[in-house]
């Protein structure tokens, strides 16, 4: 939640050197073009015809002028007019049709590129997606794709320009004079030099402008996301001041770019005028010698100017062509992703008999050499409720929500469900069998109803209502402006933290999974709501294998067994009383800290404090070392310990009513469902799976 700002793609570090040979990148562009060979061929024909027409019409003008110098009649003038008109109309119509054809081709091409990228990304390893800076991924799909589109457009229009260039040249040589052609040619190197200058300086400035723009944008995004905080601390003015500086920087680069462009443009115009002047003089002299007619001089002047246009056009589009090559290069990075976590060739559906889960000698590292989990051996019986406890960063979330659903593959050891190694199972069936509530509630922009339905598209509205009633969410959802049809926006910014969590709970429960993973699932709820959720869980999912990551003693105590993880190692495993008797890590935790969850305050002695601080220092050193290692290895570590900045946001506890004696509240029963309705729900949950396990 806390770094929402980055969602809006702020600053994006881009590479500016191609990582592939240009040939390869061009080849990739060619493939996209190739899919529309027919359309493109048609378009080329149209362009060819229309450029022939547009080159012929000046010849007509020339002949007209030459004719008019001699004596002729009106008929001839009219005839010229009609032909000229016909030609220009012809060229107008052709190029209009061509625009249409190209609109169609290019829109399809963009669509295809986009689909390809999306397809590649949506199946990419989580590892990849989490390591990419947020915003970057989206940039591939949006701006980079657009840029590639521009590049494709440039390729096509360059074709036109080259055609024009060649045909003008041929006509000048054949119809006018080689000397005039030579003059026209002289302007080419001038234009080329100009474009080289533009490319050299322009590229750098453009990169800087983009960067500065990204910085301003990122800052603005962050400030908008943190508006509550800046208001609470009265910091609006300072933030505005900060932005002003960045804004000024952007302006400074813009200014440079403006200077460059405004030096370039008139120079090009001047070259074109000078060419005109030179041709006039040379043409005059040649005319005096009787070599050139007036009309031919005129034709030379017109064509020479037309000659320059393609050259200018080509050189002006060079920088944006380059940047679209860059975009294509980045897109290729995405298209060439080879997901490591994929279905095995002979992958089968997960067996449905046995829900026991075995972690065998599991070791795992997000980044090579930095072990997050080491040699975990843990067997969870079918139907067992197991609590996973440990300090921040111990690896609980990694174990249960990253490895079990096979978002990542373990480096050593294996994970089995029943007898199936999860590597041999179809991902889809594996993940469908596991229901998870992640530490960080995440909602989509959709109605509340659709959010809850996310994992069970076939569920009826009534099912959803019943379930929400059961967990006590119905009440507040009904109270939303449009009840269940209210659209959740921006991750649910108009919902309270607890409400957001409730919806993710309902979503998981409705999906009716065989195996449950609750990662601090009720941390944002008050004890009462928590108890409702817990009872619903018991009612609907009793006897299913369940992992509960929790900090709250009451939950932990009531688990069948407790797994204690410390710095990536499974240090203890057993029931509450077994572990207490062991007088190990858990017992210490229990006696020193858990009592804190009751009425008493913990008074820590000086030694205890220094011990804690000592531990923390060591932890930090460990982290620092990891960072170092990461930097050395691969050199791709951007985030440090976590690819995503937020996963630590929502720890908490799953309390439970069990164990303490219960008062029956006079006013409320646990849920507004009648016993029949409850039964109905239970039936539904079982029937759908087609498997009933007795416990």
């Amino acid at each position: 939640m806390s770094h929402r700002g980055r969602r809006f793609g702020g600053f994006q570090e881009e590479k500016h050197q191609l990582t592939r040979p240009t040939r390869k990148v061009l080849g990739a562009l060619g493939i996209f073009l190739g899919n529309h060979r027919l359309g493109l061929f048609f378009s080329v024909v149209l362009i060819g015809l229309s450029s022939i027409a547009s080159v012929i019409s000046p010849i007509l003008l020339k002949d007209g002028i030459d004719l008019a110098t001699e004596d002729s009649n009106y008929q001839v003038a009219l005839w010229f007019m009609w032909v000229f008109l016909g030609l220009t109309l012809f060229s107008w119509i052709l190029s209009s049709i061509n625009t249409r054809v190209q609109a169609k081709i290019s829109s399809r091409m963009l669509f295809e590129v986009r689909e390809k990228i999306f397809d590649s990304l949506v199946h990419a390893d989580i590892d990849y997606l989490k390591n990419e800076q947020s915003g970057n991924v989206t940039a591939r799909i949006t701006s980079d794709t657009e840029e590639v589109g521009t590049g494709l457009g440039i390729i096509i229009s360059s074709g036109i320009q080259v055609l024009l260039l060649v045909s003008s040249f041929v006509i000048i040589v054949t119809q006018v004079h080689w000397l005039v052609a030579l003059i026209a040619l002289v302007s080419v190197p001038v234009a080329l030099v100009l474009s080289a200058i533009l490319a050299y300086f322009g590229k750098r400035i453009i990169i800087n402008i983009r960067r500065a723009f990204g910085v301003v944008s990122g800052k603005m995004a962050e400030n908008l996301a943190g508006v509550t905080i800046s208001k609470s601390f009265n910091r609006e003015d300072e933030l505005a001041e900060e932005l002003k500086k960045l804004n000024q920087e952007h302006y400074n680069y813009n200014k440079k770019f403006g200077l460059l462009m405004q030096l370039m443009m008139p120079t090009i115009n001047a070259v074109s005028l000078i060419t005109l002047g030179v041709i006039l003089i040379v043409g005059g002299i040649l005319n005096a010698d009787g070599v050139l007619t007036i009309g031919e001089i005129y034709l030379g002047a017109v064509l020479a100017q037309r000659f320059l246009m393609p050259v200018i056009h080509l050189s002006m589009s060079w920088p944006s062509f380059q940047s679209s090559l860059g975009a294509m290069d980045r897109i290729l990075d995405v298209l060439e992703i080879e997901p490591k976590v994929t279905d095995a060739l002979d992958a089968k559906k997960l067996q449905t008999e046995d829900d026991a889960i075995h972690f065998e000698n599991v070791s795992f590292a997000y980044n090579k050499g930095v072990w997050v989990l080491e040699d975990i051996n843990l067997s969870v019986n079918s139907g067992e409720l197991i609590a996973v406890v440990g300090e921040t960063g111990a690896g609980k979330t990694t174990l249960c929500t990253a490895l079990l659903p096979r978002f990542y593959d373990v480096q050593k050891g294996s994970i089995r469900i029943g007898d199936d190694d999860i590597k041999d199972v179809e991902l889809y069936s594996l993940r469908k069998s596991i229901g998870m509530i992640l530490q960080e509630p995440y909602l989509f922009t959709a109605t509340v109803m659709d959010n809850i339905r996310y994992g069970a598209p076939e569920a009826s509205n009534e099912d959803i209502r019943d379930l929400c009633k059961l967990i006590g969410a119905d009440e507040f959802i009904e109270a939303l402006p449009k009840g269940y049809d209210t659209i959740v926006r921006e991750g649910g910014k108009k919902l309270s933290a607890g409400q957001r969590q409730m919806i993710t709970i309902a979503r998981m429960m409705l999906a009716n999974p065989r195996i449950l993973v609750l990662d601090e699932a009720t941390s944002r709820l008050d004890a009462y709501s928590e108890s409702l959720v817990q009872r619903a869980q018991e009612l609907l999912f009793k006897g299913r294998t369940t992992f509960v990551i929790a900090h709250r003693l009451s939950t932990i105590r009531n688990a069948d067994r407790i797994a204690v993880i410390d710095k990536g190692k499974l240090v203890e495993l057993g029931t509450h009383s077994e572990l207490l008797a062991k007088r190990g890590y858990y017992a210490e935790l229990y006696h020193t800290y858990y009592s804190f969850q009751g009425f008493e305050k913990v008074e820590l002695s000086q030694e205890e404090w220094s011990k804690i601080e000592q531990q923390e220092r060591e932890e930090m050193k460990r982290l620092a070392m990891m960072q170092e290692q990461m930097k050395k290895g691969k050199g791709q570590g951007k985030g440090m310990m976590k690819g995503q900045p937020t996963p630590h946001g929502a720890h908490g506890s799953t309390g439970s009513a069990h164990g303490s004696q219960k008062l029956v509240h006079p006013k409320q029963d646990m849920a507004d469902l009648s016993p029949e309705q409850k039964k109905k729900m239970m039936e539904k949950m079982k029937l759908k799976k087609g498997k009933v396990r007795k416990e």
Partner: protein
Amino acid sequence: MNATTEKKKLITERYSSFKKFFWLYWIKLNPKFILVSIIGIAITSFMETWPAILLGDGLDELINSGVTNQFYYYSIMIFVAAGIAWVAYFISAYLWTLAGFRFERDTRQEFFEVIHNHSMAFHDVNDSGVLLSMGMNEVAQMRMAYNPAIRQLVRQFFSISVTIYFLWQINSIIGIALLLCLVWYLALAWQYAKRIGPVRRKLAKELGEVSSSSQEIFRGIDVVRSYGNEEVEQKKFSKVSNNYAELIKTEGYLSSFYWPGLVLVVFTAVAFGYSMMLMMSSRQDFTVGDLTKVIALLLALNRFNFFIPRLLLMLQAGLINAERLWGVMTFDDPMIEPENPERSEWTESIVFENVSFNYPGTSKEVLKDVSFTIPPGSNVALLGGPGSGKTTVLKLLLRLYDPSEGIIRINGLDMKDLPTKEVRSSVTLVEQDIFLFSDTIKANIAFSRATATDEEISLAARRAKAANFIEAMSDGYDTVIGERGVTLSGGQRQRLAIARALLSDPKVLLLDDFASAIDVKTEVQLRAGMDELIKGRTSIMVTHRLSTLADADMIILMKKGEVVDIGTHKELLEHSEDYQFMCQYLPQKENGGN
């Protein structure tokens, strides 16, 4: 130079409508630049059109007398025109460009300041992604309306005028016909821009859709995968992306068959034929040179035809964006700063008198007739279910919103009479979801008080039990956190937030259920930090922890926006059924392991 620093009055106060804002503000920013620029453009236009005449004159001279000095004079004047045009173009375009970029910079800044200063009522209903894109892209598009669009249009205007003048000189009928033709042309072109404008706007919106929908999917990729919904999302995206592609096609279709262009083409052809006839009939006053002049001028006009539609579209987009920005900037803020601001010492009670509240833009009352009194220096706990209004109470105390009904009294004063700045400098909130900026740790702590010295910062960190982990980092207080920096754990973030709150030394401290998300060890440390924070000030905290509740001087029990009971832990245990009910679910201290 920089207008925003000097002026006090906001854009929205200076202009009465978005149109005036659009047309006047940028000129106002740099009137001299624009003036010089316009003169320069006029010169450029003349100098770039004149060579067509010189060419004609040169050819006439050639026909009549051959290569004479006069002929050379005409030719050389073309070079002179090129030189003058170069200088005039550079000066005018550069100045104009500067004016445009300045407009962009200043408007972006002001836009941000204005919306940032709008109250939460505004930010609740406006999507921050949309606001961002307005501040960045739409402001840039407005700038593009000035530069290049208006600059080029002005240039075209001068060129056309010069062309008409020259043609008039050659032959008045052609001149007049061209004038009429151009009026027709422009009318058609504007019509065209109007037709394509909406498609463009839709296109921009669709692109936003493509971007936000993909962003959402990849941010929540673990959720997508855990429900095996990759294909579903792919289909959804494909639909969005297809809509966009179809729109692009539509736009392309609309821009083909550009009818206004036809007008010019036909006119050129007709003028060509007409001039030829003229020449043949009356050799004396209509020369070959004249014929070439007419054609050259008209061909040049056809070249403008290439740009004009784009320019008109840019202009149109700029106008529309101006309207949108204007709408957002003139948001009618329900939060009004008091006309006669009072000061409060916050030494007496905080009183809620029958406060009801609904979030702006919604009709649901999330607080209903809430009344309570918080004595100074007391330690109050708020308890209640999800969505019962706890966070809302805290937000009202920060004056992020004003109650819809009822009064919040501070020292007997109505909170509405206290400026928001005043309230917020006395009250500090530690939020439920900690927000940290991607900046250094130091800057994040000092966020609550910019003037804090390094010692004060490290003291605050020490008191919040954060110093330890900060100092263990390689860059200490200068460590950058966030995307390109170190990632902090939940507990560490919260301790930073506490250090931040400590540094602001508030009179009233609001803590929103901030300890629910951390492991026990961290929580114990946090508590120590918090005790420091609470000492000697009024504090109101949302909590579900029994020990905190038992310690509180007063517990306010909330349910669905109403206060159901108030009292100490003991009192409530005795008389409140709701509280008893709540308490049985709170984690209890157990007597050893059983």
